[in-house]
């Protein structure tokens, strides 16, 4: 292991590449590395891994991770960190690291590369299965690593098996339905400065496994006693590992307090590493086993029915001596110790299993909650399943009885600084559910999510309830139940979960075949769903208002063109196509002659307008439906739903051609003349090619379909052409249109033009509450046939008087464009005693019309169709405008211009 330097709280430390940061700090004598979140008490490392409640740091180097336990940070050259008091900081620096995600399907996923996991992997490999083995440590072996032992050769062979993939530094953070596992692989932090720039720092694995094996191991748990949070008090397994494996030599005299044989094993390791183990205090009345015998043989004094009651600190708050209580006589005595190693039993890591709702079961024999599970899909192995190995015979003991004052310093959750006293208060307040107690005390809600404090809480509640009920034993942990564990198992950076969905990749951008032209022409775009649509095309120096006026004038007086390709397009074929459309649309399509187009409106079953568009009968039993831009997918899904689930007898097939066909709208009195210059094979005159007709034609040997459709009321042609030729056609028109001052226009001008004609936009002039009647479109509601939504028109409210109806609105001041969304009121409306003013409707669309030379609006007004000519008030901000209700068609009511 190469020696490197890293910094912690601005001081330089030496360490071995890859070792835990806390090991290097401890070796340097750095014990108290932070102070606690609320009480400001000095705190040092307690554990070995993600369960660590105290040693939280922020990375100052690299990605500047906001909060990590220093137990899981592998030191590398250039690493810099600073201590935290349980509150993270978010630096306002751009995140430059890459994050990615991947998907993996596998026969067997084994979580945990300790002995149990490796053995399970071996079994599955032998059964001919492909195995993915993930483990959160840098190296396989689990506890073996903490013991400084190498893997046996047989297990090294497992790792080398061709059907096994092993991912280290990879933590399963969530187990979801149908064996879906989310895991987080840390790929570059441990490399420090030598990490390749293009390497994703964290990879999120989405794993789907036929079988999942959970072998996550267990955490050692602490004990509850007074002043149990002092630096120098450590879980025994952690203390022994730091001393024996990582060469930490700062502890001279140790005391071990235990409830199981693990304390003996760790005492032996400390002893062999040169620490003077002064005594083992075992809460049990008796202990047996090889580790007990071995401890005895070394001469370490062992005392049963004794445990730690309190600790005494030096001026810095560091543990200096320990007060031991005899559990039978309650006598106490003091013993000096700079290390108090605690072994409170094991808490198997049940988290993942509980994510999908499995309830852990309390085992008296193990003094632990276990998940012993074995189905075809999910199995538990190792400590989680109760295989504690060794000679353990743990006691259900969480700490001695403490008085009021002692309980104020007996910490349950070190990160949250919550004490036994806090628990007592919670119980005293009448709370008996562990969930209430968690919420009252905040135990288990900090960075470590109660990995060590959860079980202590349960233990303490058992004790407290025992006291409350006036006798022992009180509740069993089985009665209290566990806290609920929720994903993720460890905190996961937002950036990792966002993964690749950053910036432009956060949501697809959809573009048309003509997009690049629009970009080059300087278009300003608007987002319409996922589409980028040109909003307007400003000339140099023009503001939006200028550009839109110019575009409007061109369309009404000359010729203008827009990209209408985003409209949804659906081919509908089959002998029942017309019957089908009759059921879908409120109006009749079975009467539509071939080669002609018809505007249609569709409702949902509730009678509310849902989409609209023009449908053309291209040939026998062959329609082309257009939908709104936003409605394309919705409408196709709607058609398919009815065909598949209600009317399978109808012979109809629907196919989306939204992208296959690009649509160019050529609009204006000069559009025919211009287009005829390019179209040689058909006559575009009104007599041979009337309004709402569709024709096939050629432009430059490119087949196009031209329709006399107008969304502006002007003479207009929609040119449909396959995606690959759209730009050619557009540019040809553009070139040929120069003498006509052909003008490109965007959606804003389209909106003005259509509003001048009173044409609705579904979703703008409707809000999900309008029937066709409300939109003054009774003409489109067929009386002769049944269609979806018709029945609902009979519901009382849908046919009630006073409904909002679509009308025009002209403000007294023609220069003033009424804000869209503004409400109408009666002229003399005033706020009532509650400050509310009754309104009568609202403005849906509002623009300045160059053609009218004034502003105008569309509005939904109560009973509006019967109130033509009436004046309403439109209050907004501090202003009140007066406006007159009028017909929603402002231009060319006689429909002369379109021909």
């Amino acid at each position, binding site marked *: 292991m190469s020696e490197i330097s890293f910094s912690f709280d601005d001081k330089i430390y030496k360490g071995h590449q890859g070792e835990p940061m806390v090991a290097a700090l401890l070796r340097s004598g750095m014990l108290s590395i932070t102070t606690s*979140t609320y009480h400001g008490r000095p705190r040092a490392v307690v554990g070995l891994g993600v369960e660590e409640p105290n040693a939280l740091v922020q990375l100052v180097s690299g990605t500047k991770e906001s909060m990590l336990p220093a137990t899981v940070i592998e030191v590398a050259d250039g690493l810099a960190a600073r201590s935290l008091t349980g509150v993270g900081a978010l630096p306002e620096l751009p995140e430059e690291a890459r994050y990615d995600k991947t998907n993996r399907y596998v026969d067997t996923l084994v979580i945990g590369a300790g002995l149990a996991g490796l053995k399970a992997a071996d079994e599955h490999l032998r059964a001919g299965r492909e195995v993915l083995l993930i483990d959160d440590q840098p190296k396989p072996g689990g506890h073996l690593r903490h013991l400084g032992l190498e893997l046996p050769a047989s297990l090294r062979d497992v790792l080398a098996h061709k059907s096994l993939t092993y991912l280290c530094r990879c933590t399963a953070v969530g187990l979801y339905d149908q064996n879906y596992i989310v895991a987080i692989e840390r790929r570059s932090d441990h490399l420090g400065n030598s990490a390749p720039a293009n390497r994703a720092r964290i990879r999120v694995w989405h794993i789907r496994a036929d079988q999942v094996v959970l072998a996550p191991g267990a955490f050692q748990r602490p004990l509850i006693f007074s002043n149990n949070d002092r630096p120098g008090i450590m879980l025994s397994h952690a203390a022994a590992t730091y001393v024996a494996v990582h060469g930490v030599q700062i502890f001279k005299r140790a005391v071990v307090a235990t409830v199981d044989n693990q304390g003996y094993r760790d005492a032996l390791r400390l002893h062999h590493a040169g620490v003077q183990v002064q005594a083992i205090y075992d809460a049990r009345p008796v202990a047996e086993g090889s580790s007990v015998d071995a401890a005895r043989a070394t001469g370490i004094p062992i005392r049963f029915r004794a445990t730690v009651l309190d600790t005494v600190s030096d001026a810095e708050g560091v543990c200096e001596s320990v007060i031991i209580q005899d559990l039978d006589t309650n006598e106490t005595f003091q013993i000096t110790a700079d290390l108090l190693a605690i072994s409170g039993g094991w808490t198997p890591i049940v988290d993942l299993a509980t994510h999908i709702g499995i309830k852990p079961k309390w085992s008296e024999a193990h003094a632990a909650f276990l998940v012993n599970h074995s189905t075809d899909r999910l199995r538990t192995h190792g400590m989680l399943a109760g295989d504690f190995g060794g000679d353990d015979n743990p006691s259900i003991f969480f700490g001695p009885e403490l008085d009021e004052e002692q309980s104020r310093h007996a910490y349950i959750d070190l990160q949250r600084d919550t004490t036994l006293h806090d628990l007592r208060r919670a119980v005293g307040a009448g709370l008996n559910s562990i969930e209430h107690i968690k919420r009252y005390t905040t135990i288990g809600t900090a960075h470590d999510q109660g990995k060590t404090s959860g079980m202590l809480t349960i233990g303490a509640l058992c004790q407290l309830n025992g006291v409350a009920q006036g006798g022992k034993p009180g509740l069993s942990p089985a009665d209290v139940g566990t806290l609920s564990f929720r994903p993720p198992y460890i905190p996961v950076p937002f*950036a990792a979960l966002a993964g690749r969905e950053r910036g432009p990749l956060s949501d697809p951008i959809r573009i048309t075949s003509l997009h690049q032209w629009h970009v080059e022409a300087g278009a300003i775009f608007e987002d319409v769903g996922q589409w980028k649509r040109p909003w307007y095309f400003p000339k140099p120096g023009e503001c939006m208002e200028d550009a839109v006026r110019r575009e409007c004038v061109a369309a009404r007086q000359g010729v203008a063109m827009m990209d209408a390709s985003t409209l949804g397009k659906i081919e509908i074929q089959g002998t029942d196509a017309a019957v089908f459309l009759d059921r879908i649309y409120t109006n009749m399509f079975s009467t539509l002659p071939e080669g002609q187009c018809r505007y249609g409106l569709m409702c949902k079953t509730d009678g509310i307008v849902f989409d609209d568009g023009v449908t053309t009968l291209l040939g026998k039993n062959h329609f082309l439906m257009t939908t709104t831009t936003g409605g394309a997918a919705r409408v196709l899904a709607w058609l398919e739903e009815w065909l598949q689930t209600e009317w399978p007898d109808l012979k109809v097939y629907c196919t989306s051609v939204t992208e296959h066909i690009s649509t160019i709208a050529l609009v204006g009195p000069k559009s025919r003349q211009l287009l005829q210059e390019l179209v040689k094979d058909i006559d575009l005159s009104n007599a041979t090619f009337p309004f709402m007709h569709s024709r096939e034609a050629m432009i430059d040997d490119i087949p196009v379909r031209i329709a006399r459709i107008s969304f502006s009321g002007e003479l207009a042609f929609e040119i449909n052409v396959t995606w690959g030729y759209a730009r050619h056609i557009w540019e040809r028109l553009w070139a040929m249109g120069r003498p006509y001052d052909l003008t490109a226009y965007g959606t804003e001008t389209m909106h003005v033009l259509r509003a001048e004609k009173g044409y609705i936009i579904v979703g703008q002039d409707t809000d999900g509450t309008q029937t066709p009647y409300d939109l003054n479109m009774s003409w489109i509601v067929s009386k002769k046939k049944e269609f979806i939504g018709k029945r609902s028109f009979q519901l009382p409210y849908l046919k009630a008087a006073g409904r909002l109806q679509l009308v025009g609105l002209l403000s007294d001041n023609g220069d003033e464009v009424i804000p869209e969304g503004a*409400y109408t009121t009666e002229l003399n409306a005033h706020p009532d005693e509650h400050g509310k003013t009754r309104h009568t409707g609202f403005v849906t669309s509002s623009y300045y019309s160059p053609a009218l030379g004034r502003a105008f609006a569309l509005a939904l007004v109560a009973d509006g169709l019967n109130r033509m000519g009436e004046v309403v008030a439109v209050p907004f901000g501090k202003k009140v405008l007066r406006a007159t209700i009028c017909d929603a068609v402002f231009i060319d009511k006689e429909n002369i211009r379109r021909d």
Partner: protein
Amino acid sequence: MTNTHDTLSPGTIGRRRAATFPEQPPRLWKSVKPKKAYDAVIVGGGGHGLATAYYLAKNHGLTNIAVLEKGWLAGGNTARNTTIIRSNYLWDESAAIYEHSLKLWETLEEDLGYEMFFSQRGVLTLAHSVSDVRSKRRNLYANALNGIDSEWLTPAEVKKLVPIINISEDVRYPVHGATYQPRGGIAKHDWVAWGFAKAASDLGVDIIQGCEVTGFDIKNNKVQGVQTNLGSIAAGKVGMVGAGHSSLLANLAGFSIPIQSRPLQALVSPLLEQVLNTVVMSGAVHVYVSQAHKGELVMGAGTDAFNSYAQRGGFHVIEHQLAAALELFPIFSRAHVLRTWGGVVDVSPDASPIMGLTPVENLFLNCGWGTGGFKATPASGWVMAYTVAHGRPHELNQAFALDRFVTGHLIDEHGAAGVAH
């Protein structure tokens, strides 16, 4: 007691301790065993049920009442929501009840004598497209006529209020503006329920946990009481306030309601130095975020697509939500997801609640709050207490009756106002 808690943030970079909570009172509520009979029984011990019981006792003098909770008190959606409080709804009927609620919130801590960390830090609702702006502005004008405080902020003003927001034009869905309700904010959800529970308990209401209703005693189409796992309980009147389980309760009483139960997920980060003093919502990109009193970021997601009572949802919903959040708040990239969880919300066809009478006499219904029920807790309790006490709806819940689905008079909040968080 309002608007004082936000000053705890030093607003400077540097190590600091997290804010602490004040001590709780020595006793919150008494857990009791059910009596044989009550004047009224409220089924469901969440915020709404407890508030109903409290106002029944306080406003209507009915104290021989019980709240029956099948699990632990307020352990359902009350414990699982993201605590956003606002009243700037689009439709008059919605605005009226949510504004009534907000007014109650403004004096609730004093009324109950219990601190709930109600903090009027303001709620921003972002608009990300031209059409988004149009509908948000309509909302703003509607609020003005309904006497509800609401302002329009330009992107620059948004940035001034929430400096960590990215208002660049280059993000996938840039901020085009926002409505802002200064009186909106957050409260500490558990404490709200506990406050109502304590106050109700102090007024003599029996709070009974671990009591699951398994049936209704109905004679001549009139409710006589409920059957529970703890035995039969006679009741003159019964209020069903069972949130995600409403349709099951209705079925037990012999009728059907238009409710689907869906998972709604939320998440929280570890404690962070204060960076966000305003609640920020964006229906368009599914971000609902605030930074709680102690410093954790609290975020809500959208509902999962399918019916479920499992109190958990899919992780993809969370991943998608975080991607959207980072677009708006690049500074969050180094924050961590500490914990995710799910609730079961009852969703009605028009995303508005259903409150009032049922086909069974003396049996009353309050459900369908979907993703937005927390903010309505006081008003929901207020009007339900009235409805239970008088056997007819309060003027504020008249429009939310079950029969609106027959008349067609829906109050369609998802049509125009986006997500009802």
